[in-house]
């Protein structure tokens, strides 16, 4: 039961190769005069993997709050994903160098001539932006690390004291995350077009993080199971996970429609300005594929009971969702930054680089603790689930 994971040297080399690809792509992007495109891609991928890590830890918190028994054996995976937040803090720092390329509101002269930006200036200004960034990351890292430490202590000491402490910390965490991640999404994504706002934007991004974070948790568990870990993983666990994805696909679709339908129906130019380049211009195909990939396909596919209990089918769904989140963020960022659409080596290379960092950090974190918690009060229930 107590086996710790080992990272193979092949895996390490492959991930370092991916990171090298990423670094070379970014440098090449700057040298070939694609500065804005490169910054936009750095933002996209930074946000992408941050959202996945936060979504996974949010899922972990929900498990603790609902006192779920079935998932007790798998909590180490989202806990390890929480470690990426520390790396993400430093990766986001790079973006401050290119902040003038990305955000119109950071140009002082432009703000002075613009009544709307001037009105928003008390909130949208660089010093406060940086302060918020530090506070948000500090809160996330503190709370996720605290949950992890309590869980590791529980391994040694046992009892239900830590279980209750984790539950309390999780309750604090979901409230903190709901507010801070919403503001974070507004800061980093919605303010790309500072004249426009949608009150549901942050909720949609939150659901996206939750949805895709859960998907990645399941992907890691299935892959580890195929490598011989988690021998207790059975069809009931897979069924429970697939139900999570099924429900979240519906919530995501609901949020997508809520934002789009209201703006479409009201038809106010200040609001529709966001959708005009996305639905009428060259982004049209992405616009519809975002909905099909993230909602229609998982919704119809996971409805079939047999899919939810088949690891390979689930891996396929998750692969589609990985593309889906990328398309969603591409749709959020690119029309406001690079404007004309085209997928070049920059898009692919940057994503691979970030994927390498993410995988390496998670793998390294997974080796630091026993893969299955020892003294979780519901561990037995989780292992026996479905037997």
């Amino acid at each position, binding site marked *: 039961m107590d086996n710790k994971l080992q990272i193979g040297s092949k895996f390490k080399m492959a991930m370092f190769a991916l990171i090298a690809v990423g670094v070379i792509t970014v440098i090449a992007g700057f040298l070939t005069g694609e500065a804005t495109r490169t910054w936009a891609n750095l933002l996209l991928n930074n946000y992408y993997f941050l959202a996945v890590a936060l979504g996974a830890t949010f899922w972990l918190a929900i498990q603790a709050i609902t006192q779920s028994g079935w998932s007790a054996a798998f909590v180490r995976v989202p806990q390890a994903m929480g470690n990426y937040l520390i790396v993400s803090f430093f990766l986001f720092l790079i973006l401050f160098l290119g902040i003038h390329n990305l955000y119109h509101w950071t140009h002082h002269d432009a703000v002075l001539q613009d009544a709307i930006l001037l009105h928003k200036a008390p909130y949208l200004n660089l010093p406060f932006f940086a302060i918020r960034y530090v506070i948000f990351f500090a809160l996330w890292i503190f709370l996720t690390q605290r949950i992890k430490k309590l869980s590791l202590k529980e391994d040694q000491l046992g009892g239900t004291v830590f279980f209750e402490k984790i539950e309390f910390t999780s309750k604090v965490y979901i409230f903190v995350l709901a507010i801070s991640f919403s503001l974070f999404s507004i800061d980093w994504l919605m303010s790309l077009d500072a004249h426009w706002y949608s009150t549901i934007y942050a909720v949609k991004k939150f659901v996206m993080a939750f949805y895709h974070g859960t998907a990645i948790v399941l992907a890691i568990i299935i892959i580890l199971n195929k490598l011989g870990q988690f021998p207790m993983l059975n069809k*009931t666990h897979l069924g429970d996970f697939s139900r999570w994805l099924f429900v979240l696909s519906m919530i995501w679709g609901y949020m997508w*429609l809520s934002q789009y*339908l209201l703006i*479409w*129906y009201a*038809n106010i130019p200040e609001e529709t300005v966001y959708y005009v380049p996305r639905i009428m211009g060259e982004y049209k195909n992405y616009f519809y594929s975002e909905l099909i990939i993230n909602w229609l396909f998982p919704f119809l596919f996971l*409805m079939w*009971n047999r899919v939810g209990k088949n690891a390979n089918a689930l891996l396929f769904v998750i692969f589609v969702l990985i593309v889906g989140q990328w398309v969603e963020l591409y749709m959020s960022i690119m029309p406001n930054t690079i404007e004309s659409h085209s997928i070049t080596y920059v898009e692919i290379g940057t994503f691979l680089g970030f994927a390498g960092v993410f995988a390496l950090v998670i793998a390294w974190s997974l080796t630091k603790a026993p893969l299955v918690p020892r003294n979780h009060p519901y561990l037995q229930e989780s292992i026996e*689930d*479905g*037997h």
Partner: protein
Amino acid sequence: MKTNILGIYEDEKVLTDAVDKLQAQGVTISDVFSPIPLHGIWEKLNLTTRLPLATFLYGAFGAALTFAFLFWTSVVSYPLKFGGKPLNTLSFIIIMFVLTINIGTLFTFITYFVREKMFPGKQVKLDVPRTTDDQFTIVIERPLDMSLDEEKKINALLKETGAVEVIETNN
């Protein structure tokens, strides 16, 4: 006329273990009654249902029916432009969404009642009344040609696995 052997248990863990043991001995269990949902018992008994498929079909039918109705009223029969919106519009979605759920649920409900021969005011006929409270029952069908020895063996097995009572019913 069907005869059933009922083994009555007082604990769900004892019952699920009993199901395993009985099946290992080659006894076919036709059903289990329980006041609470039992995890995994469905798969063990190899029970099947087409009700979810029926619900899906009713839902699809409901969506199509609602769309047809909305299309007929606002495009064919009484085309009225308002707010510069197209006649065949996205605002159908909300009504379709709600009526799909409504039609799917109602038809499923009716199907279930018809298949189970239930109706309002039907008198409850329970062989073991406490299965709605705190007892669990294993149902084993007894064919008419079952030998007395075999029946005794099943009775003994039920007792052995923790049944507090074994009864036989006709219905």
